[in-house]
């Protein structure tokens, strides 16, 4: 056996050139430091990290030299420690003049282990993409060959691979000639093209599995319990721009296997960083990327941040209004994104009115705010607005969307009662934990106890499962109804486990309009694929122990509202944030998953903690956000922040939602709409349901309330909207009306300039600039018809982006 010293000596001769390009680390680290290879089939990647004097890390895996102390035990090939015989060896890693050691033990080298069906064959097929949704994983398969989506159903897959169509796909006599190999190799024509090469780990696994007779796994075969990633979190500074990720799978028998070559990798943000099939992450630009690692249904995430010195960037050290700004600014500083300036008072007054009460300020309100000289005037205005009755109506409407208030679902009278309840809940600032409990544990007559309509809208166990998961857990779990979720950790078992909280809910119509909801004492959910009876199951907590005759919904809510619940508070503060900021910290706001990480974990955690500490007080959280400098930043961007879409460096311009937009048009023209069944002068934001609405609202994205998904409210622009605004009957009627604002002003004897100024203030909350005023007056005078000229000005203002957009 050679000594370490001898190995060093050998390097002095041969090994110097390779490290010439590596950074100059003050120390290096190798992972894993200790590893056991307990089968001749296993190996382990050695990940080498160099640390600079200032602590910055750099991935040196591909620059390092490796030498084994005993080549009869371990050899190192391309940075992978490969077993050669039983015993122990030390691998010495050298790079940049630094050394580190990994101890590798090899045991059971004589053991010939059959390929595991699950952890060999199915993992390989998944890795190569064979069973993805677009290929053989689609419900009808491809080319007569169907696999379960990402291997959620191993029993079905073994039948399909081995026995379907008379054992056609595999050949145990001459394994290499199996269709299962020749097709993806493109030795035989394959609609999916080439998916595998003969040198890949997947090819060897599939071939060996076939050669061994296509054996299924033993019933008690060890199963993977978790993944361990290295690094799990890392910040890399340019010029460092790549990082190898190591994936270790921990099995139920205590063994640990390196599955880096077999795991699947994906990046949460391909614009920031891409990841290849070997787990090598390469940065494209500065920013953060979550690298989702998947090994069958087990997943984990590595968080990588890539930083870059941006030329001309100087941190302006803006003041912080509260902890929101602390977290937002810290991230912007780290990523070298310039925060925008504070918005003007004109911008602020328009923005905050629209966000908080869904209305434009009146000319008088705008004027008095602009005239106020108090340094606290923004805070004062926020406080005032949060106490306005319109605040309750506007925010009740948002919940009415999610709770699907529709005549067809809960009858017109039922909708009114439920809507009244929601408005009252917001007006009285009902704590969110109580709000959730009222909905989720509701019993009785839907007239007497309107929250019971929750179970009227969610009319069966599956709907309850999906709605509750999405609204209160931010989990879009629908996929798991039929198969394990393809992009998330949630399995089909989990879906029906959540369902077990709801399947005892009973519903009965007492008359055509009213329903009674109650909970029976028994009834279980059966998982349709396995036929197993499911226990009530809580995400990340496991099966819930609940007394046999207890209302399981109570147990669910008890768990939801616990201070340590990882979903409940985060989902709600994120939703509130999303409403006023135009984008969630997690976005879409109801799609929390490992592969869709928050743009700032710290910010989300801080908001959630503050929310819980204040007794789930939604008004408090809104007030905190609205008072932050972050909320009050301008929407104007510069070269150092114009690319930012998710770190809140500037206000996000967005189309005003349908109802406030219609109300704003009514306000500017001075002509309210009429809604059937509502009193004269009612606003669109007061509508209990879209049944009373109009086409204009639908065109601008008012949801039909078919689902509990926030995504149902469309915020996209489209051609119909343009047609509505340019020459739709609603706009046309209001601009032409004898009673509209500018005609009233004319009747009052106001001159053109006074009228134009009023229109600007009403629509844009600001005075026209000199140029705008000149142009408007010029047009009125030049048109030869004063009324037509002012009509045009009014029309032009309503069609201006500055009017249509929140900014």
């Amino acid at each position, binding site marked *: 056996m050679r000594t370490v010293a001898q190995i060093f000596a050998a390097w002095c001769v041969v090994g110097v050139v390779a490290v010439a390009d590596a950074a100059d680390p003050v120390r290096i680290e190798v992972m894993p430091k200790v590893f056991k290879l307990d089968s001749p089939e296993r190996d382990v990647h050695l990940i080498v990290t160099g640390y600079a004097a200032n602590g910055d890390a750099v991935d040196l895996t591909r620059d390092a030299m490796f030498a084994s102390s005993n080549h009869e035990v371990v050899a190192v090939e391309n940075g992978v420690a490969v077993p050669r015989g039983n015993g122990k060896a030390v691998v010495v890693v050298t790079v940049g003049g630094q050394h580190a050691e990994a101890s590798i033990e090899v045991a059971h080298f004589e053991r010939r282990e059959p390929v595991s069906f699950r952890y060999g064959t199915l993992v390989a097929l998944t890795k190569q993409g064979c069973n993805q949704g677009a290929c053989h994983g689609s419900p009808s398969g491809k080319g007569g060959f169907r696999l379960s989506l990402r291997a959620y159903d191993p029993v079905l897959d073994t039948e399909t691979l081995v026995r379907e169509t008379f054992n056609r796909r595999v050949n145990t*006599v001459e394994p290499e000639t199996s*269709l299962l190999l020749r097709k993806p190799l493109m030795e035989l024509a394959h609609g999916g093209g080439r998916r595998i090469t003969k040198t890949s780990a997947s090819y060897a696994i599939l071939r060996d599995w076939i050669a061994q007779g296509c054996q299924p796994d033993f019933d008690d075969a060890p199963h993977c319990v978790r993944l361990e990633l290295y690094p799990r979190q890392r910040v890399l500074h340019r010029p460092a721009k790549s990082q190898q990720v190591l994936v270790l799978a921990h099995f139920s028998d205590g063994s640990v296997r390196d599955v880096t070559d077999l795991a699947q990798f994906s990046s949460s943000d391909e614009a920031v960083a891409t990841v290849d099939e070997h787990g090598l992450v390469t940065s494209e630009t500065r920013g953060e990327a979550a690298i989702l690692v998947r090994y069958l249904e087990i997943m984990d995430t590595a968080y990588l941040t890539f930083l870059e010195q941006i030329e001309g960037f100087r941190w302006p050290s803006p003041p912080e209004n509260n902890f929101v700004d602390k977290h937002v600014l810290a991230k912007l500083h780290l990523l070298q994104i310039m925060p925008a300036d504070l918005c003007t008072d004109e911008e602020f007054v328009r923005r905050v009115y629209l966000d908080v009460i869904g209305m434009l300020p009146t000319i008088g309100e705008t004027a008095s705010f602009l005239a106020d000289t108090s340094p606290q005037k923004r805070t004062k205005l926020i406080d005032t607005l949060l106490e306005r009755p319109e605040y309750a109506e506007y925010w009740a409407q948002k919940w009415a969307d999610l709770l699907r208030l529709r005549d067809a679902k809960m009858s017109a009278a039922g909708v009114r009662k439920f809507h009244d309840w929601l408005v009252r809940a917001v007006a009285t600032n009902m704590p969110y934990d109580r709000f959730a409990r009222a909905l989720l544990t509701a019993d009785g007559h839907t007239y007497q106890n309107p929250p019971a309509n929750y179970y009227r809208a969610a009319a069966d166990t599956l709907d309850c499962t999906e709605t509750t998961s999405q609204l209160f857990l931010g989990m879009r779990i629908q996929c798991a109804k039929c198969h394990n979720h393809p992009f998330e950790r949630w399995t089909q078992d989990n879906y029906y486990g959540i369902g077990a909280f709801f399947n005892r809910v009973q519903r009965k119509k007492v008359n055509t309009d009213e329903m009674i909801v109650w909970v029976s004492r028994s009834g279980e959910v059966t998982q349709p694929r396995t036929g197993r009876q499911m226990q009530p199951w809580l995400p990340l907590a496991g099966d819930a122990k609940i007394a046999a005759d207890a209302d399981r919904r109570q147990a669910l809510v008890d768990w939801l509202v616990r201070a340590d619940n990882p979903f409940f508070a985060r989902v709600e503060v994120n939703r509130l944030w999303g409403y006023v900021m135009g984008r969630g910290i997690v976005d879409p706001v109801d799609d929390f998953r490992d592969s869709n990480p928050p743009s700032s974990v710290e910010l989300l955690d801080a908001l959630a903690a503050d929310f819980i500490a204040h007794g789930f007080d939604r008004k408090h959280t809104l007030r905190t956000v609205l008072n932050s400098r972050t909320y009050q930043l301008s929407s104007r961007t510069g070269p150092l922040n114009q690319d930012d879409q998710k770190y809140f460096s500037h206000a996000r311009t967005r189309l005003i939602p349908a109802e406030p937009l219609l109300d704003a048009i009514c306000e500017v023209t001075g002509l309210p709409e009429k809604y059937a069944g509502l009193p004269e002068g009612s606003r669109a934001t007061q509508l209990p349901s879209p049944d009373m609405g109009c086409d204009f609202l639908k065109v601008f994205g008012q949801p039909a309330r078919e689902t509990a998904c926030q995504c149902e409210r469309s915020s996209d622009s489209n051609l119909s909207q343009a047609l509505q605004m340019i020459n739709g009957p609603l706009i046309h009627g209001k601009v032409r009306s004898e009673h509209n604002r500018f005609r009233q002003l004319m009747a009052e004897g106001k001159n053109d300039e006074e009228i134009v100024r009023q229109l600007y203030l009403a629509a844009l909350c600001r005075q026209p600039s000199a140029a705008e005023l000149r142009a408007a007056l010029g047009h009125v005078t030049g048109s030869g018809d004063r009324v037509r000229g002012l009509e045009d000005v009014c029309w032009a203002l309503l069609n201006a982006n500055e009017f249509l957009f929140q900014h």
Partner: protein
Amino acid sequence: MQATGYGLRATGAVATLLTLALFAAPATAAEAPKTVSFKRDIAPILVKNCFACHGPTDPKGDYQLHTFAALKKAGESETASVVTGKPDDSYLYQLISSSDSAERMPKEADPLPKDQVALVKLWIEQGAKFDGGDAQALLTTMLPRKIHAPPPEKYRLPVAITAVAFAPEGKELAVGGYHEITLWNVEKGELLRRIKNVEERVYALAYQPGGKLLVAAGGTPGVSGEVSLYDPEKGALVRTLVTSADCAFGAAFSPDGKQVASCGADRSVRFFDTASGKQQRLIEDHADWVLGIAWNHAGTQVASASRDKSAKLFDVKTGEALVSYTGHSETVYCTAFGADDKLVYSGGADKKVHAWNVSDGKQSTTMSAGGEVFRLIVDDKQIWACGSDKAIHQFVVGDPKKEARAFKGHTDYIYALAFHAASHRLASGSYDGEVRIWNADDGKQLLVFRAAPGYEPPQTAKK
């Protein structure tokens, strides 16, 4: 300059061709081919490499070459595929010889071997002549039959049994093996003979009524298929009736033994004259693989089973499709006629046997068979069905709702089933290589053996 280059290239190609011929066909190596034969040299290349995307259905780029006539027609590129004498102007040649992997054919695969590209070139230079007879015929029917690889001396692992057939006197059983048909003594399970020169898999076996022939349908999945006649006594190939680009799944003699009907992955139903081997009719009426075929007792109709989820009834004389039965809504694997030829029984992935009327295709009744039904036997009193639930289900004709009994013993999918009427025995074969012989009436198992010559099971079963 141009002419010299041309000459040099041509010489090179001929040299390659000589070498190729020497290696590929040692039996005929003495005489090197002077001219390229489309049928012998070009069609096999096209079938192997191009057919899947440019075949009879859903062609890519709107270009097909499943027949010679189609091959000559330009696809959506509207560029002539073959210009006689001018390979460089022929789009087909341009694409297979391109150095740009993005445009080169076959797509997303290794380029064709240089010698094959040279062959195509030479063929075009020599005038792109067609020597295959009917320009409308599928290229797959022109493929020369190859001599098949020998079976394993000893089986390392048993192979799935996908075909069994009783010899007429009932003493011998033919079993499909790997590149062979094995013949076994029905009383003792002893191996009698091994027939070689057989396709990799055998999906159907049938003895000639009143004759001495054995017909086998089989193939190498995704590569080739054939229907061949063998002499089971001598263990020799008599004649190959047809070859195809994927497996043949079914073959059956007419009751008088004078005709063979076959079916396969090419969606075809074919009829052949047994004595001459001449194909009498080709029917392409199914939309997907045809997995099973059966004659009626009068020899006037056949019933086919297909992955297109239908079973169909054809008139033998006219080739006319009489009935299309779509009641399974899943793959149909097998068909059989009732004793009076008035009902067709079909079995499928819907785990049922359906009985339907020959006259109008209306469903008469269905029987539940526990699992997918792969094979079906019907005699005048009883029905036997086997499949994925590892049992043979016995039903009584006329009282279909009641299952008489299930023959249990197999521990895996039963892919093959045969009946010997005189001795009233059934033979079944399963995925794990087992063959079992049963008393067809009471389900008593008479014999079990593993039809894998030389196979030695592991000494200690490892848990």
